[in-house]
């Protein structure tokens, strides 16, 4: 099969985020090559969905967060979409792994938030944010490796 896609929709409550996270973890475990960590993909999706609930919808219930999981021949793509307040594009552009560095001499200055986007950008191969027609989508792409690593974790067959 060339392309597989599953769409999940949750209401904008933090209690629902783990449902999406666990589902994505399970999907990645079942259909992705061994070199992709289900935990890593779950983490990125959870961070993205948290952002929708907390920032796009300001923790208000009653709004939809849509998560589309798609598997292609050489990549896995997860789109996380909301219809709330768009994210300032600069947040994504400025998010960098350097923001995860710490200063041992300044524990009090350690940030308690703001690690979500740097984590996503560090783990995923491509991260694109689009806001169009009232719908905001963060698209997360992870490319597969090659050779032995492309074998699926279950069954040991090359991915199709």
């Amino acid at each position, binding site marked *: 099969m060339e392309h597989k896609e599953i769409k999940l929709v949750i209401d904008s409550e933090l*209690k629902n985020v783990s449902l999406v996270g666990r589902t994505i973890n399970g999907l990645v475990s079942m259909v992705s090559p061994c070199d992709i960590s289900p935990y890593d993909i779950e983490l990125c999706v959870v961070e993205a969905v948290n952002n929708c609930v907390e920032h796009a919808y300001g923790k208000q219930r009653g709004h939809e967060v849509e998560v589309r999981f798609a598997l292609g021949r050489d990549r896995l793509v997860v789109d996380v979409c909301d219809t709330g307040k768009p994210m300032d594009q600069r947040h994504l552009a400025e998010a960098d792994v350097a923001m995860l560095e*710490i200063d041992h001499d300044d524990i009090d200055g350690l940030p308690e938030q703001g*690690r979500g986007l740097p984590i996503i950008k560090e783990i995923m191969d491509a991260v694109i944010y689009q806001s169009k027609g009232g719908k905001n989508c963060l698209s997360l792409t992870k490319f597969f490796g090659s050779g032995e690593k492309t074998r699926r974790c279950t069954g040991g067959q090359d991915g199709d």
Partner: protein
Amino acid sequence: MEIEQRREGDILVAKILNDRLDARGADDFRKAMSGFVSDGNRRIILDISAVDFVDSSGLGALVSALKLMGGDGDILICGAPDSVMRMFKLTRMNKVFRIFEEQQDAVRALSVE
């Protein structure tokens, strides 16, 4: 957030019983840790062996707990599953907290100080 507590001398061993330390439970966790510190606990071991998922909000809550100590005390972490440990390394939390595989190793480390 369910946290099991026990004492080893003046060390508080707090074991998180939930399987996730995430945005949903982060506030509860902060409050619980704040309570421990307010009660005078300055040597805390956090057993996260039952936690199989931590997100950035959970990390923020851990950092918040450490900052509550105000430099007067320590929080050690033990029991992190491999997946959580990789996340700690990615976010440099392994440089912020002393992390042990076994609870008894963490207790021993604090006991000799």
